[in-house]
């Protein structure tokens, strides 16, 4: 199966197949033999890729830590890719959903659909653990949708705003 993976600003196309207890991974056509083992819990892995040993930690929030360095990662599989092509192709992948990092109360909404935002502009303010946290735009773009309004409670993971 093919996957499109975005790691920070870089994109990789991966294809892989399982061979016994190993994976053969084709990263942009280079084949790489990868052995995987759990380290105490399922989100902590040891990867030996081409005999190089890596410590890998998978976090809920779309973060992967490799040898102590944390990368933002997004995985889309073949099906999602097909879907994306149907509904408008590559550009559509550029949408970003800003989600609540924790449960809390929305105490401020600073944008409305159609607003242009720059990286770092405030979008929504959530109060949690007696602290107000302003969620900021991860990049430049246009506000496509706003899903919340002041005074409502949100759960961690709820989508608040979509930027395109």
């Amino acid at each position, binding site marked *: 199966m093919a*996957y499109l*993976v975005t*790691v*920070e600003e*870089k994109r*990789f196309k*991966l294809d*892989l197949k399982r061979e016994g207890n190993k*994976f053969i*991974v084709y*990263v942009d056509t280079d084949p*790489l033999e990868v052995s*995987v083992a759990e380290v*105490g*819990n*399922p*989100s*902590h*892995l040891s*990867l030996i*890729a081409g005999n190089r040993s*890596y410590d*890998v*930690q*998978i*976090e*809920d*929030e*779309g*973060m*992967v830590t*490799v*040898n*102590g*360095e*944390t*990368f*933002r*990662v*997004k*995985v*889309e*599989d073949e099906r999602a890719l097909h879907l994306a092509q149907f509904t408008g192709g590559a550009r559509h992948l550029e949408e*970003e*959903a*800003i*989600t*609540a*990092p924790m449960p809390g109360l929305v105490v401020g909404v600073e944008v409305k659909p159609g607003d242009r935002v720059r990286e*770092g502009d405030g979008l929504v303010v959530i109060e949690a*653990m*007696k*602290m107000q*946290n302003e*969620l*900021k*735009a*991860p*990049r430049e773009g246009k506000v496509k949708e706003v899903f919340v309004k002041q005074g409502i409670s949100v759960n961690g*993971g709820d989508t608040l705003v979509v930027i395109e």
Partner: protein
Amino acid sequence: MKREMFKKVLVANRGEIAVRVLRACRELGISTVTVYSEADRNALHTRYADEAYEIGPPPATESYLRIERIIEVAKRSGAQAIHPGYGFLAENTHFAQACESEKITFVGPSSKAIRLLGDKIEARKTMEGAGIPVIPGSGKELSTEEEAVEVVGKIGLPVLIKAAAGGGGKGMRIVRKREELAPAIRQAASEAGSTFGNPTIYIEKYLESPRHIEFQVLADNYGNVVHLGERECSIQRRYQKLVEESPSPIMTEELREEMGKAALKAVKVSGYTNAGTVEFMVDPQKNFYFLEMNTRLQVEHPVTELVTGIDIVKEQLKISSGQPLSIHQEEVRLFGAAIECRIAAEDPENNFMPSMGKITELVEPGGPGVRVESGIFAGFEVPIFYDPLIAKLLVWAPTREEAIFRMRRALSEYTIRGIKTSVPFHQEVLHNPHFVKGEYNTTFIEKMFGGMRLKRGDHRIAAVAAVIASIQREKALATSKGRKEAHSLWKLAARQAGLRRF
């Protein structure tokens, strides 16, 4: 004054420093008592002490700062002494006084010494009177703007406006232009009043690129005083120390002797006893100026312990129990080099935002020359109510160069999952060429650091890992056994990017 070691000591603190003091007590055969807030029921210190007493709700003002409750626990448990750690009540004159009047030994200096040195103007006057260099400035509280203008006329701009009751960088304000002076004074006085309950301010010349170098001192009740050499603490962010080391990269034998003498003089002139720290600013020409004296155990005390072999907490307990110092100045030698990194529950990639939550996995570094002072454990929920310092990582090595390599190695082993920590920040500092050369000062973070680096590691492996993890997750989903663990991995693929920068 008794000379027998205490049989029972109360540790009135939490986190790594409470554990540090409890360990010293255990090694000295002293029974231990501690206090805890409702948020710290399963905290390390609560579990480490022989006896533990709940003293109130999570906010420190309702628990760790409640003097009367802590005194009550000491009396009820029969503790002969109270060690305050650092922070909370460590430099609180009222607390030291309350201990004195209840005949409980306060492990620290007298309330009189705390009061004298806590008033930064008084402390400055005292040191200046003893011939210790101080930074040029008003030398006294300012009552009018005219006085301020007159002082600035003498010492020149830029200047620093400081609160007499401040300290540790709190309530300070730099003035670089004459027209900013008058409003800055008004604001500073008003802030000092509301923050410290005392609007008194004073002015000092602002040193442009100073180093922060401090001397650890020990003084017993019989007039014996020693200093244990220096610690360089110039790696600071908003006046909060982040990395400390000993010896200082700029230290020479001559300068150490000169500054050490000044430190000893500061102790004697203030009638100080127990462990303390004399802080100096050192300018690029290696002129040094008294900054303030900290009348408590410092966060960074283990740096000195590693290079001298002297256990400062045990010395505190010995001094407080009435024993004379067993160390003479000529026996104190700095051997090798030590570095400390303060590990905080903060996200260095997101403006050091506090990152509280449950520690889901913890692997602390080990092996040669590594010391971990930890206040956490796997499964511990870091409370939001207290300081974000969760642990200190220290290394010792024969040379500074080896210590730097060792610290990098130790940082690479540190695994703290469930929260963000400052470990990646420290890795960055330890690779910074200015730091490596030892050519840095208190402007390091602002001017030399350059922020968190772009990822240098292998993006490709991160991509491979993410895909394999999502496949493993699918496999796990297929078996009911792994359903729970798999669920959280599933999110990896399902969520979109962009949700972290809040």
